[in-house]
């Protein structure tokens, strides 16, 4: 699959993920040890009223499900997937807190393709990525970016 083959406006469901308190606290102890992420008593007294997941944990699970989804797609298409590279992301919004036991449903919609003058062998694809809760309310959104190889010219 080449950059030229990617269609815009296509949504891929990446799957669902349930956050347990133990896992949320383990991630946050390593990378985001603020009281409202790691200490149930302090969290109760905080602005958030209870333990919430680190926003970086919620975003990292998007990556986990994205890799699983793209590996599955490549296997079904009989392609060898070598991995992708990204220059970064835009407009990451943590809209609602993720609390213990919540299940988030992740998806990704292609929305922009940019040819690169500096790298004619690569193209950039931007996607709108979302995590929504069981009620369909958006918990997180961001614009992702990935480089894709261009179809070699004959």
């Amino acid at each position, binding site marked *: 699959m080449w950059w030229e083959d990617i269609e815009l406006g296509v949504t891929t469901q990446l799957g669902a993920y349930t956050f347990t308190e133990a896992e949320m606290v383990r991630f946050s102890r390593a990378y*985001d040890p603020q009281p409202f992420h790691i200490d149930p008593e302090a969290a109760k007294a905080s602005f958030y009223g209870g333990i919430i997941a680190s926003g970086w944990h919620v975003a*990292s699970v998007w990556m*986990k499900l994205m*890799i699983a989804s793209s590996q599955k797609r490549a296997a079904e298409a009989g392609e060898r997937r*070598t*991995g992708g590279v*990204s220059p970064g992301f835009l*407009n990451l919004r*943590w809209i609602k807190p993720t609390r213990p036991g919540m299940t988030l449903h992740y998806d990704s919609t292609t929305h922009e393709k940019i040819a690169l003058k500096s790298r004619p062998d690569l193209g950039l694809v931007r996607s709108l990525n979302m995590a929504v809760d069981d009620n369909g309310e958006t918990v997180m959104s961001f614009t992702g970016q990935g480089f894709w190889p261009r179809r070699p010219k004959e």
Partner: protein
Amino acid sequence: MIDIWFEDLPEGRTLDLGERLVTREEIVAFATEFDPQPHHLDDEAAAKSILGGLSASGWHTCAMMMRMLVDGLAIRAASMGSPGIEEVRWMRPVRPGDVLRMKGEVKAARVSKSRPEMGIVDIEWTLHNQREQVAWMKATGLYGVRHPAAGGSA
């Protein structure tokens, strides 16, 4: 001990969060859980990839930046979390053995209109290793406004 409030983060204030060593074990452990692509997991496959060697997942770089931000700022500050990140740029690979240094500058600071006890602070962060700049982030943080009864600046 909370000694940094919204008032201590005016526009133009610079911040130095110190250093963090990146280990191979940590790169592989994070990638195994959240971003299992060959260039984050395996030296031989990584050497053949576009990044030319084992490197940290960009989401791992973000998680490490968050940990530096917590240890160097948020843990001392009346931090109330974050509504989001305007942009992250993954500029150069982060390698095993890199020593990362994170610095920031406050770009905008305003009191929330709907919640006057909360201040909204936009900070641009740079991340360098021992050779070059590896990442850039513009993030919004929420910080408690010092209660008038608490007196002047810290």
